[in-house]
């Protein structure tokens, strides 16, 4: 059966067809559509596949481990920086190993289309000592899912599947199976000696996992996804991984004269790489992300072949690749083209018209005029756009939850006023623990939880804390006198500004919750209502 699927959707369908029992994820571009596809899938409903959003990537990864412990197949999805959040369970899942198959799908975002860095997840898999799969096409992404789960159960290791933005968000026709594999039955095969990571047991597991490495490498050499395609001209050989393989082949519509090594399974297949470095005078390495393969191939000692790639300037050191970068590196001229039009101006994204965050920033800016030294610590979400004109309202944005903890640290250093602004979903993701720190020391900070009742930036997914924020704050020990809820609409401006001013002047922790539904989800809900009324 042929379907036109996004890379993300091909992954989701592949997981369902591989007998998935649960997907665990927190939304993050470019990975969000995987979980959304499973949430909409009729077969997922029929099979009762777990598909609700998790509060963050760490809770997601751990729940997946629990499902694996019981013998069933679990998929964990996240964007690259989400892997930082769940690094602890991720790395230790290699130590426990798996019972039911576990695939950790990480979508990297080179060129940082929607991210704060361009970290390359392959490094994580290397130091966790687990295999990585990196598809070059949507069809491969689909096919690999089945094999990833099989491989995970065969090796008793989680598998990292790495895609990048263009694979996640590009559509192609994918041939999918007519029938999905049945789900695993519940089983009690998980061994306590593996799953209780007390040092004495963990040391033994460490020997096992380390001892598996030559096998993993041999599997990469034999993998059908790693191909050595010999060429007639050995002046150059090209190693291309993941989506970079497509850009390479785009340069040679009639076929490439040079030997090509396509890498889509790791650890790197050293034997195949040696063949290339022995046979070719020069080797060009094209990989999406950081020079992960290149660093390993280059090593320290000089080899036979001259290695070229991101580290020598043939390819750009940062940012995503494209066919034209490959052409340049291969000495092929780009097609004749028009010059860029100089009259075109940038059009950055902006907060929607009518968005509640706008009213929050208007009020905050109004009050902070009275405090020239005020610092506002921002967070990750639509409201990060408050940094841009006309608001220019925030002074930092680092990672999920850092607004509250940075405000506290700044206050500890002597800063006043120190204001944190964080969204509702980000607050439950990683802000609650920081707020507990602040409350325990009664830090002199003002926290604004701008609650739009959704995870807006990624397209309006459910937000874990909806209707619970007052209870959460009180439960963490916040004084009710300094927990304020306001409705951010222009006509309430006097009330909102008065509240902010009052709480800044209170020398302890305050939480102000401006609450109004996101314009995007509001419009969607109105449409649904209208359709239902028909």
């Amino acid at each position, binding site marked *: 059966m*042929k379907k*036109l699927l*996004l890379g993300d959707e091909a992954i989701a369908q592949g997981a369902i067809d591989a007998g998935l029992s649960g997907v665990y994820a927190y939304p993050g*571009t*470019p990975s*969000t*559509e995987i979980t959304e596809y499973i949430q909409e899938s009729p077969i997922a409903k029929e099979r009762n596949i777990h598909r609700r959003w998790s509060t963050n990537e760490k809770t997601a990864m751990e729940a997946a481990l629990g499902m694996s412990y019981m013998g069933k197949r679990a998929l964990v999805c996240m964007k690259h920086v989400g892997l930082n959040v769940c690094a602890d369970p991720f790395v230790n899942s290699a130590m426990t190993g798996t019972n039911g198959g576990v695939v950790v799908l990480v979508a990297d975002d080179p060129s940082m*289309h*929607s991210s704060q860095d361009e970290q390359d997840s392959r490094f994580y898999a290397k130091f966790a000592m687990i295999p990585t799969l990196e598809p070059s096409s949507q069809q491969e992404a689909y096919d690999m899912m089945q094999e990833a789960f099989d491989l995970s159960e065969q090796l008793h290791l989680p598998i990292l599947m790495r895609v990048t933005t*263009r*694979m996640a*968000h*590009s*559509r*192609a*026709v994918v041939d999918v199976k007519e029938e999905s594999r049945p789900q695993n039955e519940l089983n009690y095969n998980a061994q306590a000696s593996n799953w209780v990571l007390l040092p004495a047991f963990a040391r033994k597991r460490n020997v096992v996992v380390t001892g598996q490495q030559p096998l993993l490498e041999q599997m990469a050499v034999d993998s059908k996804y790693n191909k050595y395609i010999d060429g007639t001209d050995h002046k150059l050989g090209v190693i291309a991984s993941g*989506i970079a393989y*497509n*850009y*390479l*082949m*785009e340069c040679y519509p009639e076929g490439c004269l040079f030997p090509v090594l396509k890498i889509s399974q790791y650890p790197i297949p050293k034997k195949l790489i040696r063949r290339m470095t022995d046979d070719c005078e020069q080797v060009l390495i094209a990989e999406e992300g950081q020079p992960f393969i290149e660093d390993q191939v280059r090593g320290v000692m000089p080899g036979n072949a001259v290695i070229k790639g991101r580290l020598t300037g043939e390819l750009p050191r940062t940012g995503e690749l*494209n*066919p*034209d970068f490959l*052409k340049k590196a291969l000495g092929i001229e*780009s*097609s*004749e*083209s*028009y*010059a*860029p*039009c100089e*009259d*075109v*101006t*940038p*059009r*950055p*994204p*902006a*907060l*929607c018209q009518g968005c509640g965050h706008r009213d929050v920033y208007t009020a905050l800016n109004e009050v902070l005029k009275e405090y020239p030294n005020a610092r506002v610590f921002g967070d990750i979400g*639509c409201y990060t*756009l408050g940094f841009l*004109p006309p608001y220019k309202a925030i002074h930092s944005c680092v990672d999920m939850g850092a607004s509250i903890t940075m405000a506290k640290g700044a206050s500890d250093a002597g800063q006043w006023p120190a204001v944190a602004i964080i969204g509702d979903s980000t607050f439950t993701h990683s802000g609650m623990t920081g707020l507990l720190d602040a409350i325990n020391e009664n830090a002199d900070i003002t926290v604004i939880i701008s609650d739009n009742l959704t995870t807006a*930036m*990624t*397209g309006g997914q459910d937000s874990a804390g909806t209707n619970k924020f007052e209870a959460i704050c009180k439960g963490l020990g916040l004084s009710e006198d300094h927990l304020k809820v306001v409705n951010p609409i222009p006509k309430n401006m006097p009330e909102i500004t008065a509240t902010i001013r009052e709480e800044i002047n209170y020398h302890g922790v305050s939480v102000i919750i401006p609450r109004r539904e996101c314009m995007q989800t509001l419009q969607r809900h109105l449409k649904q209502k209208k359709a239902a009324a028909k």
Partner: protein
Amino acid sequence: MKTDIILCGVGGQGILSIATIIGEAAMKENLYIKQAEVHGMSQRGGDVQSNLRISSNPINSDLIPLGGADVIISMEPMEALRYLPFLAKDGWIITSSAPFVNIPNYPDIETIKKDLENVKNVIVLDIEQAAKDNGVPRSANVILLGAAQKALGIEYDKLEDAIRRVFARKGDAIVDANIKALAIGRAAQK
């Protein structure tokens, strides 16, 4: 057959529904398709584009190389020009004439018009007005698609069939409005 298309506009203008119709027509013809989309932050009123490639042979890259696009279909005139380096020298720009001004430094529209005139093959249409005048106010983007039909190298009937399939579950009235819009666009072709 091979056509490389850049669809562009401002987040929220509905470029992906044009892509869906073209993709549906191409699927029916058993053509290979690759379509890179933009999701995430820039959808909030920023510039958005999609690279859509259809071909009778397998397609390698999800991205179109410089000077490679056969056609740029744009819901906004300045956005059409943003991707000019990707247009083949004999490629077509099919664009809406209506500027979408959500930035303070939007250039003078006359300058934009002149820049568009300097492109060899260009169709500039007031699709919003045409859609209103013809009683299909919600199908402006399909007018643009109709105007791009020749440049796309897809037979008119096939696009019409694709519209029927894509909009079938929304009812006959919406199917008919979109087919009418497609015809208005076709009539505007050079």
